């Protein structure tokens, strides 16, 4: 069982999807319920990972599986090679954790073509989990691209009125980046082969061994980084995000914000940085600058939004800027902060999108000006919204603080000191835009008669938010269980990126560079 835990977890949703196709199309609740059960089962399958203490001590990959997949003689091989370490562990759990919540959120939100939506959601889950567990770059790429299609349809079919533009923009932005990455992936592979490494597939652990000259790293890193930066999204390639988020249905936004964006940051951690350490160091000032610009820029733009969802979307840009800053700090605090902030963003922003969804379901508008004074009618909602707002702001005691604090502290301790100083202003701006929004929506007189009859949260909706609330405070008050399992992996990553110990397997002189034509 544990031998194939990861595969079971990853492909169970696909099985569910196939089974789903045989359910009657008309019975929406049955389909939703079935999907919910599938995702919950996946969550329980993934749960043993969370309780495995091996991650506290060992940085390596666990639960590994290896099946030869494509092999074309001496041309190339690709393997189904998967595993999990302290970095991917949490993202996997985040995925399996968020999915049932996202599905549950669709209960009243999705009513047309339910079957299609659920099938896509399950396909998406497989793709996301697959990307997180892949240890073969080619496999990763497959899953990475596979994520695009379900999301594209989710936005395009179940989205708002500007959905087509948003869906196409989402698809093209993301695909453009990943196509360039593909070139780099192939290049790295042949580089490794030509430098005499007997590659078994596109194994990343073997790629780590390749000593690539700095000037080549530069280009490869750029290709990878571009792809991941779009996904993160970093300034200035973020503009797909507000549109995608605004138009996507609630569940789509939740998945997009909570998990899909993490693909980008995860890509940096897993691929771009350890594969090309020299280039990483070379580009850190630049990327950190973009992160900081993203933080401030996202916040300033978020401040002026009049659509709640767009505001939350821009706040994502800001928060992901924090994550990237922490990652680029390249020390344990920054990285841990970045990691925990990824989880935080998943929980908090996911929750905020759910909250927006609640409002939208009730009022069919997301325009801030349409609201005001809702706190009076919806006290429970107001409380939860408030907690999530402050979690987003990074109030100590909530999860947001732990992440931001560590990121800023990590950045401050690294060469990015001045970046950290400017990034800290994001702390102020976050309060400005979140509180202003909260005030305009929840406070004030209840003037709009359409808001008079708003109902407070239902049991289902509270059940949806409860686990998220739990994690807001858990991570805020006692984050050590999370840290202790990611630390060994992060330390190893640091060694790879900063390391003095990278052993060049081959003398650089021996390597025949393919000539650029």
């Amino acid at each position, binding site marked *: 069982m544990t031998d194939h835990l990861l595969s079971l977890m990853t492909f169970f949703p696909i099985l569910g999807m196939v089974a789903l196709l045989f359910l009657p199309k008309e019975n929406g609740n049955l389909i939703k319920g079935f999907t919910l059960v599938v995702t919950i089962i996946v969550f329980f399958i993934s749960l043993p990972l969370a309780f495995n203490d091996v991650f506290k001590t060992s940085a390596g990959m666990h639960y590994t599986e290896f099946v030869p*997949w494509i092999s074309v003689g001496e041309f190339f091989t690709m393997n189904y090679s998967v595993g999990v370490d302290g970095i991917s562990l949490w993202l996997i759990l985040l995925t399996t954790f968020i999915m049932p919540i996202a599905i549950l959120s669709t209960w009243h939100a999705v009513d047309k073509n339910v079957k299609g939506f659920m099938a896509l959601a399950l396909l998406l889950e497989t793709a996301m989990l697959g990307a997180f567990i892949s240890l073969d770059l080619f496999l990763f790429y497959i899953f990475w691209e596979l994520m695009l299609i379900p999301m594209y349809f989710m936005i395009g079919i179940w989205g708002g009125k500007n959905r087509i533009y948003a869906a196409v923009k989402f698809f093209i932005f993301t695909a453009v980046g990943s196509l360039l990455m593909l070139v780099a992936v192939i290049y790295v592979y042949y580089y490794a082969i030509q430098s005499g490494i007997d590659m078994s597939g596109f194994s990343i652990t073997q790629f780590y061994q390749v000593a690539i000259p700095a000037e080549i790293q530069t280009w490869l890193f750029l290709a990878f980084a571009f792809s991941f930066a779009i996904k993160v999204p970093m300034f200035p390639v973020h503009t797909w995000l507000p549109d995608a988020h605004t138009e996507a249905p609630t569940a789509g936004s939740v998945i997009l914000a909570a998990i899909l964006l993490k693909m980008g940051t995860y890509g940096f951690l897993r691929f771009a940085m350890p594969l090309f350490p020299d280039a990483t160091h070379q580009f850190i000032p630049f990327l950190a600058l973009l992160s900081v610009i993203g933080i401030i820029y996202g916040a300033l733009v978020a401040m002026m939004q009049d659509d709640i969802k767009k505001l939350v979307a821009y706040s994502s840009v800001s928060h992901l800027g924090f994550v990237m800053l922490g990652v680029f700090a390249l020390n344990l605090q920054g990285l841990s902060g970045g990691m925990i902030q990824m989880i935080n963003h998943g929980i908090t922003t996911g929750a905020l999108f759910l909250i927006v969804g609640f409002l939208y379901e009730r009022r069919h508008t997301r325009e801030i000006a349409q609201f005001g004074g809702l706190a009076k009618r919806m006290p429970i909602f107001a409380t939860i919204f408030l907690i999530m707002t402050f979690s987003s702001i990074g109030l100590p005691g909530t999860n947001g603080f732990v992440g931001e604090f560590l990121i800023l502290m990590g950045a401050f301790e690294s060469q990015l000191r001045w970046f950290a100083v400017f990034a800290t202003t994001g702390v102020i701006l976050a309060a400005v835009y979140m509180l202003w929004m909260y005030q305009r929506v929840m406070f004030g007189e209840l003037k709009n008669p359409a808001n008079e009859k708003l109902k407070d949260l239902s049991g289902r909706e509270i059940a949806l938010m409860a686990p998220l609330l739990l994690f807001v405070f858990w991570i805020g008050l006692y984050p050590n269980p999370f840290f202790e399992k990611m630390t060994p992996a992060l330390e190893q990553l640091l060694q790879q990126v900063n390391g003095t110990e990278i052993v060049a397997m081959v003398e650089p002189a021996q390597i025949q560079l393919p000539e650029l034509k």
Partner: protein
Amino acid sequence: MENLVQEAIANVNFAAIMPSLVLTLFGMAILLVSVFLPRGSTTPVAWLSVVALVVTGFVSLGAWNNPEVGFYGHVALDNFATFFNIIFLVSAALTILISDDYLRREGYPVGEYYPLILFATAGAMWMASGTDLLTIFLGLEVLSVSLYVLAGFFRGQLRSNEAGLKYFLLGCFATGFLLYGIALLYGVTGTTNIADIGMYFAQNPAYISNIMTLGGVGLLSIGFLFKIGVVPFHMWTPDVYQGAPTPITAFMSAGPKAAAFAGFLRVLLLALPALQPEWSTMFWILAVLTMIVGNVIAISQTDIKRMLAFSSIAHVGYALVGLVAANEIGISGILFYLLAYTFMNIGAFAVLVLAGKKGEDNLTLDGMAGFGYKRPFLAVAMSIFLVSLMGIPPTAGFAGKFYIFAGAVEAGYIWLVVIGVLNSAVSLYYYLRVMVYMYFRDPAEDFGWVKMPAAAVVSIVLSVVGVLYLGVLPGAVMEIAKLAIF
């Protein structure tokens, strides 16, 4: 005289032409059958043709790893030829499966249609297995003449006439260049046999730079480039693809294109390997031009057939990338890609066949609005084909593109690959647009074509299976493609 006869008898090796022989015999038999069938009942002919193709397929497979040569070195049934034969047979079979009901719908239930496809397939086989420029030329002509007829098959339809005539005039024009090139090469080497030409240049490297050689190669290339549809010899493609009956368009985009590639590859790799630096450079430029022109023009198309025509130009550009690389991966990548392309493109056209109304005026983007809700099965299939055409995993299109680009990267053509992927990015736009219309727009009107003919469904299902199989488990076929190159 006695010797001559002995020699001639010794050279008659039916094993070397067995697939095409079987196919032409079937073709003639079916031609006869169709004469005796009552007017309008073409279904038996169609199924007979499928049987013919299947039988030929088994015959072809029997030749795998069992190369045969014969007829004074005019043909060689090697793995290369076999691989391409399978491509032709697959494309012909898929085409025939979608044709039957289509012909009836459009009002041309003519039995000769199927033998013509079979003959065209046979011609393609001669192109792939011909080892003499003459054989290749004749194969090309059999193929082309059949296609001229098939493109103009709907004789009451002006569009179809125009397509046939344009194809005919430009095709003959290109043939002139091809022949002139062959003549010049003949002048340089004194032979039209590919192996002999290769040997001649191997023995007399000085003559490679003979201007007549170079001019001959240039002119010769044009004949093939025209058939393949490489910019600037591509201009017939959109018009003909748009005007021809849709199944024929599907067929043309897969089988004949592959045939031209087969002949061209054989000529380039066996007769002219010495000129590789020259033609690699030229194909570099042509590949870039082809990709750009195909993709860019496709963006502004609203007729889906025409859009797919431009997209097929772009795909030729991708395949040419493998030719630029000219290494094992690149060349076998072309083979793989052509097979993958066969499935995905014919699949896409098959969906169009079923989506169209009589006269096919509705095969525009607007006409596809809401298609996903009216015909969910077809729309899902279409989406899979489009995704494959985009080159998104886990589909055949991605595997093929990966294969070819890997070859180019290995050969060091990084920038070419970068241009290639950027072009893929451009292509996303117009492929996505079809999906946008199918799923994200509300249905404009009802679709007239209610019946889902079993044969066409089989064709679509086979295409889907092919696309997904080649996408998820491409290893086996890639291995075969690797064994199929010289």
